[in-house]
């Protein structure tokens, strides 16, 4: 019997010894699954476990702690309620909030779950049946922490607080219903990701609709999510098989939709030839090297997938967050929230896009290094892009401050100076440390290619100074806002020295960066 693959990948994909070099794609799916499973394990073991065995000492106890906490919370839920003096049963309380929790899980999945399509890329040129590939990666993506962690809570909860208190039929239907909702949350995320990839505006409209619904729900105090949650899970606990059937149909439909979407995404990606848009044509190269480097960055933003999505998402998120945080819906107020709001409103783009600068150019970094471009000019051009983006974001978010919270207008202006002067420089300081290759043709969502621990930690020195000022001068906010603006203004005056300093760092790190950018995309 013929296997799949040539066995030439240093044992990465194994095949029986009699595998012909032209193995066809009609191999039994089970063989493909077995090969992929083996590769999956090898990939996990070689990339995660081996090089970072020392990390296990920190991560394993942490994971065990989280697992024990979830299991304990599920098993002893009634004692927690007793301790907190909440006069209701554990099941009734969970039924009220479970839908909200699952919707909240969508957000976590949105930001942290890697899409199956990215995992599939290395296999697409091999003679493996695509149907099996899609099916394998689609369903293997279910084995993620986002599904395992909820189960650690839900299984002991079911054993202790569902099975003993409702008839066995109801308990089973409730259990299956909760599993179905978890799967729906998973598939819903995949579907939303596909939508974002292909119909950005529709996805944006859906997000806005969801946000508006939530705001109205909170505003009028209807608690629609809670009511729907209670009705759904109480009905399931009562043994409503019809509801379970509906959930099953929904799962089937979403699975079909995402599978088809994944199939067509594989067919349509990459080789579509696009013509330069009018906007990107209008941005021309002229005399002036820094100007031309700025134009080069703008053309990249307009013409390559991931940078373009970063730009769009920065604007959408800044608008959404600013609108939500300034509305009455937001009950969390205070200097820390003001710092976050100010920083994000005009600095969202710089914070998002700026952190991967230079890595965006990993495909042609060698070309930039070998040409007559000084590092200072490269840095200065990028600094100008970030600074201009802060001004643009400031103007986009200005109407929200104007209409929803005029008292915070001065804060918005102060943070414009801070983001232009400080945030832009800090992001470039981080950017000259980038050394992981980034593919600009892949989608941005759930894609963490190019990121390291530094990218997550770097937010601290960016947020800390204004937050400390706003908290420290809590009784005299005007003083704090003036100091934030002054700090930004002072640093704006130092733009040229900063460009020189960062240019020198770029010169020192050019070999490490170029070597990293030259390595294959993971």
């Amino acid at each position: 019997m013929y296997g799949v693959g040539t066995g030439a990948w240093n044992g990465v994909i194994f095949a029986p010894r009699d595998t012909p070099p032209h193995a066809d794609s009609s191999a039994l799916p089970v063989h493909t699954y077995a090969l992929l499973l083996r590769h999956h394990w090898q990939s996990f073991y070689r990339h995660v476990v081996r090089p970072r065995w020392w990390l296990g000492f920190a991560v394993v106890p942490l994971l065990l702690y989280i697992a024990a906490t979830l299991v304990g919370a599920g098993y002893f839920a009634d004692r927690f309620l007793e301790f907190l003096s909440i006069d209701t049963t554990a099941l009734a309380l969970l039924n009220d909030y479970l839908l909200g929790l699952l919707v909240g899980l969508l957000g976590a999945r949105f930001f942290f779950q890697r899409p199956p399509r990215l995992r599939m890329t290395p296999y697409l040129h091999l003679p493996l049946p695509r149907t099996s590939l899609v099916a394998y990666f689609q369903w293997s993506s279910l084995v993620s922490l986002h599904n395992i962690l909820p189960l650690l809570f839900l299984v002991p909860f079911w054993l202790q607080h569902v099975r003993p208190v409702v008839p066995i039929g109801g308990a089973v239907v409730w259990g299956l219903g909760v599993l179905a909702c978890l799967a729906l949350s998973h598939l819903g995320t995949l579907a939303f990701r596909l939508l974002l990839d292909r119909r950005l505006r529709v996805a944006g409209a859906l997000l806005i609709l969801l946000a508006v619904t939530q705001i109205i729900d909170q505003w009028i105090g209807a608690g629609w999510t809670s009511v729907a949650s209670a009705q759904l899970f109480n009905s399931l606990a009562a043994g409503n098989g019809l509801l379970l059937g509906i959930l099953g149909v929904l799962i089937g439909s979403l699975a079909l939709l995402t599978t088809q979407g994944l199939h067509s995404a594989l067919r349509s990606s990459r080789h579509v030839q696009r013509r330069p848009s009018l906007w990107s044509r209008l941005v021309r190269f002229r005399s002036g090297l820094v100007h031309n480097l700025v134009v080069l960055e703008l053309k990249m933003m307009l013409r390559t997938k991931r940078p373009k999505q970063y730009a769009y998402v920065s604007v959408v998120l800044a608008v959404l967050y600013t609108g939500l945080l300034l509305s009455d819906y937001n009950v969390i107020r205070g200097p820390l929230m003001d710092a976050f709001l100010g920083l994000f409103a005009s600095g969202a783009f710089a914070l998002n896009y700026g952190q991967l600068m230079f890595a965006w150019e990993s495909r042609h970094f060698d070309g930039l290094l070998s040409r007559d471009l000084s590092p200072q000019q490269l840095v200065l051009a990028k600094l100008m892009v970030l600074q201009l983006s802060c001004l643009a974001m400031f103007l986009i978010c200005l109407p929200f401050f104007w209409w929803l919270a005029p008292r915070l207008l001065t804060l918005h202006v102060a943070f414009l100076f801070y983001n232009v002067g400080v945030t832009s420089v800090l992001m470039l300081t981080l950017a000259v440390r980038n050394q992981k290759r980034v593919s600009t043709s892949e989608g941005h969502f759930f894609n963490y290619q190019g990121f390291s621990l530094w990218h997550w930690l770097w937010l601290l020195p960016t947020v800390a100074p204004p937050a400390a000022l706003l908290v420290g001068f809590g009784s005299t906010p005007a003083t704090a806002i003036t100091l934030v603006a002054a700090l930004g203004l002072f640093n704006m005056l130092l733009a040229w020295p900063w460009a020189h300093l960062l240019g020198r760092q770029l010169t020192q790190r050019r070999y490490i960066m170029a070597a990293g950018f030259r390595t294959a995309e993971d």
Partner: protein
Amino acid sequence: MTVSTNGLVKRYGAFTLSLPDLHIDAGQSVGLVGNNGAGKTTFLRLLLDLIAPDEGHVCIGGHAVDTDTTWKSFTGSYLDDSFLVDFLTPDEFIAFVGSVYRLSPDEQAERLAPFQSFYTDEPLGRTTKYLRDLSQGNRKKVGIIAAMFIQPRVLVLDEPFANLDPRSQLQLMRLLRQAQATHGTTLLISSHDLGHVTDVCERIAVIEDGSLARDEPTTEDTLEALEQYFAEELRVGMDAAPHNKNAAQPVAERRA
């Protein structure tokens, strides 16, 4: 403009590239040949300051490339696709490179004229295709044009003939000879195509296992001598099949 090495050593694990005293005179054309992994591209990357030497320096015009960037203003190069900005159209890319070398649009147009017949599939003027959407051969042509139209004093090309159609290969040979004759360009060309490289270059350097195995002027017999050299290497390699005890021994060592 001269190109020279001064005690140059670059190590990658067990592999060591060592070219302690290579010297290329101004206006000379040198072909680098050798097997895959011999160190040709590593040397070109060292020459263009894309990787750091472990010891010594590469100098262009007497300036060490890793400490002085003067060489960039008169050196044109194309090693691979990483020298192209793939989200630009060919005309935009050429305009960008021209602006880097401070060429006005008129100067750019004038200098592009000799390349019009080399790049025939798409007009060199306003185009609508991105570089990433072009064929491998056309991408290479754009990269070579971008390296040559600035009229560099030193031109560095890696595998320039690969992926080109026969007509374009002949045109490229003519363009390279013209550049050398008209502008006194020093040429450094790495290639596996022994026929073309011996046609264009007046000196051939063979790199093997990281060191210079042969370095001699091109004569009428060079092509045949090179073919014999690599045929001999193949024979030695086949003799050193798994049953042969000398299989792990470097080829140069075995030949000695």
